[in-house]
């Protein structure tokens, strides 16, 4: 028995010594050559996580001294608590994602100044509005996304309407009425599919065009504003009414998947208010349809005709509490991804991102919807996204969304909806 224990002790001791030697050898050789840096990325776009991992592996191949580990949790309400937990427990990532002005304020103690990075200088005008405070840029956009009316080309052709001509509310209304009167010949159930269950489609996206006007679509400006005048509310009402009246029903029972998967992708409606992110869903349901039959037009808004709302849902932030070497490596990686020749290719072809940066020249976007977004954003025919200013705080989910839903289900007049929404905004902003 004693012998056995002794043997074991010797083995363990020898093993430990061997390990120490190996460890020493390693550290010696690395300090002799390039210094090794390990950076961690924790990001909120869970659907692209696999691609980011592949990109990180590629970067490690090109820069063997930098190793990158990527992890992700999706969704706005799931991501930020996990990030907070990681920061509080001393396991903060080097690169993390920020969703808008509220996040910028929230994580202010972590954000490094990125104004001097190549990527920040190459960013398209307007994309940095939401992440610039006191002259400092603390975020770099992932990509740009855009939304409007995604339409079914075949149905419009059959109805004899050119969708690109629908630049005003009057023209849109006339076209909608014409399509509606020919529903049975066209083989559709309704003109629109308006998902009343999905609060963000009306409140974030549609309202951005009418509420955001006052702030020129600048999220940071809106976030700081103490008051809000919802002057364009009448126009918003007529747009909601139009979509509701000519939608497949019952409107309050439709959600995102009913809108995109069950109605639009199966050709049951002529158009839906959605963005370029629905492409992959449509493709999964009907590859041919996605490839040949869909297009997107801007939502006609008075004073902003033929302009597409284009914006950024997520930004990269770099943790300023990490070592300088780590921060530099992180910035270099982001610069490489968005401004180097190979990086650009990966952004477009691997991530399917519409670039938020200049210098992409005439690359061809891989699908019909992102092509539209890219075209409008290159031509500068865009309206900014102001809604990150209000979705990141409690006004939207607490005041605007429930009030809009009350209107949509006929429980409340439009005047009350507008009055309550403005009151809710002023109350929240005065308590900040």
């Amino acid at each position, binding site marked *: 028995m004693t012998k056995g224990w002794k043997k074991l002790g010797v083995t363990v001791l020898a093993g430990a010594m061997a390990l120490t030697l190996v460890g020493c050898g390693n550290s010696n050789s690395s300090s002799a050559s390039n210094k090794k840096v390990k950076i961690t990325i924790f990001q909120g776009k869970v659907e692209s996580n696999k691609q980011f991992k592949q990109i990180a592996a590629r970067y490690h191949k090109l820069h063997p001294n930098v190793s990158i580990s990527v992890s992700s949790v999706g969704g706005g309400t799931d991501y930020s608590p996990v990030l907070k937990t990681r920061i509080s427990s001393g396991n903060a990532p080097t690169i993390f994602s920020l969703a808008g002005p509220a996040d910028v304020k929230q*994580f202010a103690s972590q954000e490094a100044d990125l104004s001097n990075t190549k990527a920040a200088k190459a960013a398209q005008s307007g994309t940095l509005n939401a992440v610039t405070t006191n002259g400092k840029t603390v975020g770099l956009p992932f990509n740009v996304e855009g939304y409007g009316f995604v339409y079914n080309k075949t149905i419009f052709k059959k109805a004899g309407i050119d969708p690109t001509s629908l630049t005003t509310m009057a023209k849109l209304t006339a076209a909608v009425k014409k399509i509606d009167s020919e529903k049975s010949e066209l083989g559709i159930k309704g003109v629109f599919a308006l998902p009343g269950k999905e609060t963000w489609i009306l409140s974030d996206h549609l309202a951005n065009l009418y509420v955001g006007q006052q702030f020129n679509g600048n999220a940071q400006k809106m976030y700081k504003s103490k008051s809000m005048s919802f002057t364009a509310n009448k126009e918003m009402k007529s747009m909601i009414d139009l979509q509701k009246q000519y939608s497949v029903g*019952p409107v309050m029972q439709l959600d995102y998947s009913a809108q995109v998967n069950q109605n639009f992708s199966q050709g049951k409606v002529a158009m839906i208010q959605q963005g370029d992110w629905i492409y992959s869903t449509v493709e999964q349901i009907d590859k041919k349809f996605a490839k040949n039959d869909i297009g997107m037009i801007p939502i006609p808004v008075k004073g902003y005709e033929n302009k597409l709302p284009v914006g950024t849902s997520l930004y990269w932030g770099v943790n300023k509490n990490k070592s300088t070497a780590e921060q530099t490596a992180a910035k270099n990686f982001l610069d490489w991804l968005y401004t180097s020749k190979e990086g650009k290719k990966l952004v477009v072809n691997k991530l399917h991102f519409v670039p938020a940066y200049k210098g992409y020249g005439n690359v061809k976007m891989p699908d019909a919807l992102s092509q539209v977004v890219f075209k409008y954003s290159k031509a500068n025919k865009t309206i900014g996204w102001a809604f990150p200013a209000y979705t990141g705080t*409690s006004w939207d989910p607490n005041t605007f969304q429930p009030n809009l839903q009350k209107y949509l289900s006929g429980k409340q007049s439009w005047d009350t909806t507008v009055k309550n929404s403005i009151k809710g905004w002023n109350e929240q902003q005065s308590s900040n």
Partner: protein
Amino acid sequence: MKNRSLSFWLFLTPTLVALALVVFIPAIMGVFYSFTNWDGLGYTEMLGFKNYITLFHNSGFLAALWFTVRFVIVTVILLNVIGLALALLVTQKFKGSNLLRTIFFMPNLIGGLILGFIWQFIFTQAFTAIGKALHIAGLSGWLTDAKTGFWGLVIVTVWQMSGYIMIIYIAYLQNIPSEVIEAAEMDGASPWQRFVHITFPMIAPAFTICMFLTLSNGFKIYDQNLSLTNGGPYKSTEMLAMNIVNTAYSENNFALAEAKALIFFLIVAAISMLQVYYNRKREVDL
């Protein structure tokens, strides 16, 4: 004796440490944070009772509390009535009573989230289809309206939990000495009289347990709420637990959520304690 108390403490310490780390210390910190402007990372100022004042107007708390209270009243009554009825049914001697026990208990094995999604499909698709076929307008549009949303939640909760409550009642029903029942039968008591004067008082302890379980569970429900209605439409079916989670995670107001959670805890503790105290009083000993 001294030795024994040493080993007593030795065995108890790990549990006490664990309990302190995951229950007591966080609870005390939570109380402290509810007086600050904590955002999950840190706090910059002490707010005193400001969070508690905000909580009572325009934060959705009172609406959620009222909705939850109504929900609890309805489900406690329904669950106990149905649970007891099912227990009485399956304790009768007939073929297949064991099979029925399994069937009634089954929903309890499915997790609340999955159950909610299954029922969401039933309410929105099956109900609508049946309503169309039979021309009953009231069957379509469930979960899209505050009233039917409420009943949807009640139905799912009752469907899920009544089997569990039934099991508890069965255990107590089988404990009633058969001599007592037989004696009553000999004296000419009708089945209804036997139930009211013998069975009912004899299973009083089961009532205490079942009332407590249904009461505290009703207050704490979250997953069914999330998967069935997600608080919609217009926050009209948002229950307390969901309101607290939303305050913390989607509105990013962790301190206010702490305050709400503390009030929630006090309410549930007070009601449960009162309920147990009064139910205990009417238990009888043989």
